């Protein structure tokens, strides 16, 4: 267990701490600026915070050592001595990209909310910046209590965001979101405390990776953790909070929810469940695979019949995340890496689709597919960008959506042909619901005079969607920079999972 002790600090700049605290401090600064009189300054300050927060994460990628599965950029400071809890940060190939993704999405969210949000601007921007810092903390934490604090801490800003700036049924959605997530994580807390006791008083996640546990205990812990992560992913049948939360949240809230918050659950599986409970994971893989397939197939069908665009994309998210969990539980490199790539790709694509709906909603104040038709006639730039994202959502080659799905299907094929066959239906359903929605909204004759009066994208919207389009294409055409980061860590993870530790 000695290898988990903090390596000598090679990087004198605490990059991960900066990634966490820069957005939080900027967020507090924005909150401190007071009421809506200074809205313009508040927006610029928030943008400065988001951009600085993103800039400090870039060196993480540039200085990342591809050759090792060890934790990098490690920071270690004792925090609560009574419980041996430490402020222990570090990233490996699995978590590093999510820190960047999150900081990137935060910039877009701030820009996207620029003129749309005109009441309580400071609180809106402040909540997003603080949440961004907390989310970076979740991905960087190597101490279970620290992880839990960040994991739960994200609930507070998201609760406020949905409840204050959300749609008509926002209170129901916000409370449902909060209680669902809290239910899962409280049981996780008990599981974490049990592991703390078993490991002789350590909350270090890496110590727990080496902890031998009998199968019965592993299975109980597996279910303790499963609920927390499954709610976040969300997996069928604990997914019902997501369509509500997505539909009611403001655009920025939906973007962060889909792009980042959902990844916390999947990340929990690779950071906690697989390495700490490898035997239970193998034992119960059938269950996870079944639940994932239900999500892929059944939720895909549910998405097909939605009349509300945001709901449709929300269900599509569940279906795509089912793909991620499927990839993790076939236990081979294609599956796990595919799952991770899919997580990042889904971060771009779902964020972009929610922003597209946001663009329409800001103009028409309706999310109903039936209210649209023939948008391409009045918004050609928008239509072409949305085309790209719709294609990416259905997994078209040369978009990021294809890479992850293809890898997961390859991984599933190695495990079992029929598994791959079932998984591949996502390609069919995904194309069906996304393109059908696209057709009804964008193509056809101009449906009504509201559509006729639509204005095409303004510069700011073009910038946001353009950046995402570039990311989607880049990852689709040349995914190597993303996958090479993961190789070492994923191989180490799989080697670890393959060893029984009963």
């Amino acid at each position, binding site marked *: 267990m000695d290898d988990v002790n903090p390596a000598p600090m090679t990087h004198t700049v605490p990059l991960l701490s900066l990634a966490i605290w820069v957005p939080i401090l900027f967020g507090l600064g924005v909150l401190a600026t007071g*009421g809506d009189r200074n809205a313009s300054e508040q927006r610029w300050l928030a943008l400065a915070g988001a951009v600085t927060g993103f800039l400090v994460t870039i060196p993480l990628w540039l200085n990342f050592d591809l050759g090792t599965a060890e934790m990098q950029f490690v920071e270690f400071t004792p*925090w*609560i*001595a*009574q*419980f041996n809890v430490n402020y222990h940060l570090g990233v490996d190939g699995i978590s590093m990209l999510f820190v960047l993704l999150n900081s990137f999405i935060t910039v877009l969210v701030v820009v996207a909310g620029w003129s749309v949000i005109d009441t*309580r601007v400071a*609180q809106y921007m402040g909540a997003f910046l603080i949440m961004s810092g907390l989310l970076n903390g979740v991905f960087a934490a190597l101490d279970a*209590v620290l992880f*839990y*604090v*960040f994991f*739960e*801490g994200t*609930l*507070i800003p998201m*609760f*406020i965001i949905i*409840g*204050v700036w959300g749609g008509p049924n*926002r*209170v129901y959605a*916000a*409370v449902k979101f*909060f*209680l669902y997530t*809290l*239910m899962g994580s*409280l*049981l996780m*807390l*008990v599981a974490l*405390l*049990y592991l*703390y*006791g078993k490991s002789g008083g350590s909350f270090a996640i890496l110590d727990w990776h080496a902890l031998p546990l009998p199968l019965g205990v592993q299975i109980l812990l597996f279910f303790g953790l499963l609920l927390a992560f499954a709610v976040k992913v969300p997996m069928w049948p604990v997914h019902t909070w997501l369509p509500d939360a997505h539909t009611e949240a403001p655009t920025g809230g939906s973007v962060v929810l889909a792009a980042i918050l959902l990844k916390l659950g999947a990340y929990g599986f690779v950071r906690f469940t697989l390495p700490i409970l490898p035997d239970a994971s193998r034992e119960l893989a059938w269950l996870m695979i079944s639940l994932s397939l239900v999500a892929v197939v059944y939720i895909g069908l549910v998405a097909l019949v939605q009349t509300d665009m945001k709901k449709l994309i929300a269900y599509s998210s569940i279906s795509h995340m089912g793909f991620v969990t499927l990839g993790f539980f076939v236990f081979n490199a294609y599956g796990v890496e595919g799952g991770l790539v899919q997580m990042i790709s889904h971060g771009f694509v779902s964020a972009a689709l929610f922003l597209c709906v946001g663009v329409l909603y800001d103009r028409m104040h309706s999310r109903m597919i039936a209210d649209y038709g023939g948008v391409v006639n009045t918004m050609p730039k928008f239509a072409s960008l949305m085309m790209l994202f719709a294609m990416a959502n259905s997994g078209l080659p040369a978009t990021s959506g294809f890479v992850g799905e293809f890898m997961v299907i390859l991984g599933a094929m190695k495990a079992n042909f029929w598994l791959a066959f079932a998984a591949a239906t996502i390609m069919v359903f995904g194309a069906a619901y996304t393109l059908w929605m696209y057709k009804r909204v964008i193509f056809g004759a101009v449906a009504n005079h509201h559509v006729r009066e639509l204005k095409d994208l303004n510069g700011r919207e073009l910038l946001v969607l353009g950046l995402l389009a570039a990311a989607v294409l880049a990852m689709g055409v040349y995914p190597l920079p993303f996958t090479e980061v993961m190789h070492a860590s994923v191989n180490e993870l799989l080697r670890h999972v393959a060893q029984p530790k009963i």
Partner: protein
Amino acid sequence: MKLPASWLDFLPALPEIVLLAGACGLMIFDLYAKKENRAGSVLFASLAVFAAALATLFVLFGSGGQLLYAFNGLFVADLMSHVLKLGAYLAVSLALVYSRQYMLDRGLLKGEFLTLLLFALLGMMVMMSANSFLTVYLGLELLSLCLYAMVALNRDSAASTEAAMKYFVLGALASGLLLYGMSMIYGATGTLAIHEVARQVANLATHATERTFLVFGLVFVVAGIAFKLGLVPFHMWIPDVYHGAPTAVTLVIGSAPKLAAFAMAMRLLVNGLLDLAADWQQMLVILSVLSMALGNLAAIAQSNLKRMLAYSTIAHMGFMLLGLLSGVVGGNWLNAADAYAAAMFYTLVYVLMSLGAFGMLLYLSSKGFECETLEDMKGLNRRNPWFAFIMLLAMFSLAGVPPTAGFYAKLSVLSAVVAAGQIWLAVVAVIFSLIGAFYYLRVVKLMYFDEPKDATPVEGDRDMRVLLSANGLALLAIGIVPQPLMWICYVSIRSL
């Protein structure tokens, strides 16, 4: 410092002596002080508490934190009592500041309120330093009698007098139960001194007959403690008293006395009857689970915020018990210090949260307007974003959501329960705290998501604004750096 030897006998009780002198002085001072706003009397009372705090620090550092006995062992000054006393001073000083404007507006800021408050504090201090059943009882009665009178202070209000009557009758019953239990234990051990009781119990616990006798007494002692903490099924007084008393008095009852009740439980159960732990722990399990269940479920149904917080107190005290009941596992007390320290940390944090929540009610009340229903919280974010944020911190802390202090309180207690191997109890506790989260969220929802009934900005006096802000931010600060307070609790339990 050189003092005659007979003086040294009284030295450990210096804080009590100082406060007693202060309280008596206040009675006379108040007669001659200006009556309009009683600024002088409030200042006098605050200074008396401050002087007592200095005296406690003097004894603490003068003795180097070691155990000191006084009055032939009736009275003990140890680290735990010092820390709890300092907590009680803080709570009472905050109560003085928070309640001033409220009581003034209602014509209740009389010398009686201040004097009773100081005597109640004195009673708590005696309970914290008690080393004999007799001293425990004396302190308890001093505290309770002051509180009964304070609840009835607004004598023209039917609700207040009814609450005071209920409190008095039930309190008298509980005192009777406690005394009966103590007399049983006295009968078995032949002593009232807690350390002597502990020694006798260790000998007697192996004899079947004596053990039955002791456990019989123990049941009544536990019932007395459960009443003071407000645990189900001895909780009936809590909602009525919290609701009926003037909010400022509710703030007093809901804060510092919890520390005294915790001290009483520690003195009687841990210091005195640790060898019967196997018996009282089982009783506490039942009290704890019932309290968490009833407290959290009943709180959901409340539309009155004071009543809701009353049920939330019941639930929180049930949760705190989880620490007390997981000290001894199968006759081995390796984890005992951790478990009791967790319970102490929980109590201290709870007092801080409760001060913040009730303080906010006082802050939002004004002349002729009682802020006490959930409706009154509507749209607070529009009226005053800063104090909406402070209340948000208090609510999330009560719900136990990180990064607030309430989370670490729950974490440390749950960790003790899991270490004691009672996983099922931990699962029950988290399920009930999930249910509890709902009604705290509702308050946040009302403050942030709803429109205010009247959009007048909230103002209040400056001292209160500063201290209430500090109180709320302390919950966040303890949440970010919980180490010092946890360490203090751990060290003071270790010194027992």
